[in-house]
């Protein structure tokens, strides 16, 4: 079940990183430094250019982290448990995101994944054509990345930045609103 299997997967991922490092190929499969180095219209990016969170010393979170919290607890928590903590039938994403890359995350959420055998019945649905999720991929990733790095505790972020103007425009375009 999720516990055992996600353990296996983490071990496997760790092995893969070592292999990559030894081979000297320089693409980021594993975790990179989540520190925000750039702000693009309210979306923060790390030094690799991947989306990341920004949480100030007094606990103000960026809009994406906050939005990701909301979207997660609408569409993901029924399987992955509250706050990314895992459930009896889906892995704790707060652990998965410790090793999972941005690209792999997008891939699993968009395409889903099946793991059905005599011992398990795990199916991660494909959300690629589901606007309530597909339009908020970065929000979800950023929120879970903050959880995985222990930058954000359990529960609702108390204080947040305003919804950025560029975000509103992008959201409306994606959700098909005018």
């Amino acid at each position, binding site marked *: 079940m999720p516990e055992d299997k996600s353990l296996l997967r983490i071990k496997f991922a760790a092995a893969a990183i070592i292999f990559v490092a030894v081979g000297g190929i320089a693409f980021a499969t594993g975790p990179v430094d989540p520190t925000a180095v750039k702000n693009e219209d309210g979306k923060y990016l790390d030094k690799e250019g991947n989306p990341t969170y920004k949480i100030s010393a007094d*606990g103000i979170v960026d809009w994406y982290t906050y939005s990701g919290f*909301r979207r997660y*607890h*609408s569409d993901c*928590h029924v399987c992955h448990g*509250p706050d990314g*903590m895992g459930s009896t039938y889906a892995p704790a994403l707060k652990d998965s995101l410790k090793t999972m890359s941005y690209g792999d995350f997008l891939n699993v959420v968009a395409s889903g994944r099946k793991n*059905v055998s005599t011992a398990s019945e795990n199916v991660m649905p494909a959300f690629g054509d589901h606007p309530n999720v597909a339009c908020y991929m970065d929000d979800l990733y950023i929120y879970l990345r903050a959880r995985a790095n222990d930058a954000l*505790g359990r529960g609702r972020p108390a204080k947040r930045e305003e919804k950025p103007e560029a975000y509103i425009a992008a959201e409306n375009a994606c959700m*098909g609103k005018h």
Partner: protein
Amino acid sequence: MRKVLLATCLGSVAAFAAGGASANDELIKMSQNPKDWVMPTGDYANTRYSKLNQINASNVGKLQVAWTFSTGVLRGHEGGPLVIGNMMYVHTPFPNKVYALDLSQDHKIVWKYEPKQDPNVIPVMCCDTVNRGLAYGDGKIFLHQADTTLVALDAKTGKVEWTATNGDPSKGETGTSVPYVIKDKVLVGISGGEFGVHCHVTAYDLKSGKQVWRAYSQGPDDQLKFDPEKTMSLGKPVGKDSSLKTWQGDQWKTGGGCTWGWMSYDPQLDLVYYGSGNPSTWNPKQRPGDNKWSMTVFARDPDDGMARWVYQMTPHDEWDFDGVNEMILSDQSINGQPRKLLTHFDRNGLAYTMDRTNGELLVAEKYDPKVNWTTGVDMNKSSPTFGRPKVVDQYSTDKQGEDVNVKGICPAALGTKDQQPAAYSPDTQLFYVPTNHVCMDYEPFRVSYTAGQPYVGATLSMYPPPGESHMGNFIAWDGKTGKIVWSNKEQFSVWSGALATAGGVVFYGTLEGYLKAVDAKSGKELYRFKTPSGIIGNVTTYEQDGKQYVAVLSGVGGWAGIGLAAGLTDPTAGLGAVGGYAALSNYTALGGTLTVFALPQ
């Protein structure tokens, strides 16, 4: 087309009327034999009461495990086995295996059924791949599979006699509920309220599996099977278009009102009772109106499906308080008058006592004092809001609006009670109710509908009521007065169906995995045993070779497996709190097992 359909319906009714009547009589008789457990709810009245009394309040402390059986499936195990003569029938969550065990031959597996189902159904099941059990009738065992296939198996051999397709999983329609054999038909509901399904109850012919009637929870009168003049609500005819008038445009078509709970049947009145679930989406602003007939108690004629009376408990739901919990039928006196009662413990935290002949509302009271979204139901018959709950603005997620996080609503969406059925003992005239003691924050927001995709539209977080650390209670309830008689605290929600017996003992399971026996009069704990996994199954009893047994399925999961496995956050500890409440995963792990208890030799 309609004429042709009608003709075949009438034809099949006529052809099987004789055989049908006998299937019904057979079942009524069998359910009166306390040695068997012939329907998941014990009897048509849904009492979950047994006349067996070998195990009683003075000796239950000596109970021992007599035998066990592993189902080979890990997910959440709801429901419980059937016992008919020497045979026991055990079901499992997806992939929905059925085992027939011979109790007289060392519990040997006589036959096993395992359907082939498309695993794509797994992620469209909202809250784990549970299944609540089997039905028996006319020599057949009935199973409602996850993929909505209703299958009739020969009870002796397991051979498939017929199958019927009740829904379309690619639209989010799934099967979790128990089928019911009523007269010459098999009645079954459908799940999918989190996917905007247009839900219904459907009757299939017992012999052939042909669809006889289908009655929706929302829509035009013919789809509802309502007669605007004869279908009554709170003493008045419902009138024309009673559902359509309460929805904006076509929203009723994706309106939910799912029917995944339990049913009961009164053979004298010839009425079948069940409740409908939440209107879709969970964002109330997006669906203005009362959203009839979601959240409703239905009384229907089992022959043609026509509704005799209805009562909507939570008009325009704002909290996901599905109305699907069981309707328990009892005959008790109120104010010295013998009444035919229907008692229902709703997710919304109110327990309703109604006259089941006509739907008259007699009692509606909170069965957890923490319930705060309403100040109670308007019981004044001459008031324009008669029968409606008075909603407290502070906890109205509609009034507060989209993108507002409404805090401290009690109960949580899990309800004061979910599907886990209560029991009723005619000896004590008390109901024994497994409850959740959980509150929530709820923030609705706008979502778009895509067939087969989740259609939720709210963010929730759940926690025990402020200042308390237990998340469940097991209570005794007087349905005549609407009062709690005794209440036992439980660390976690009680997600297991109760059993009351003539031995003066009440049994239930806990999420940590304990089977507990308590005194029916006082609630005093008399026995506990920790089974291999958390219990979300219902307790059953039967007699074999002169010995009484008590059986329960363990196997943690279900909706309880989501929030509680991770532990609930403590809202008062603020941001960054690890959560003051121990996680269920510290007490138990997955695995389906049937544990059967008896007294020592």
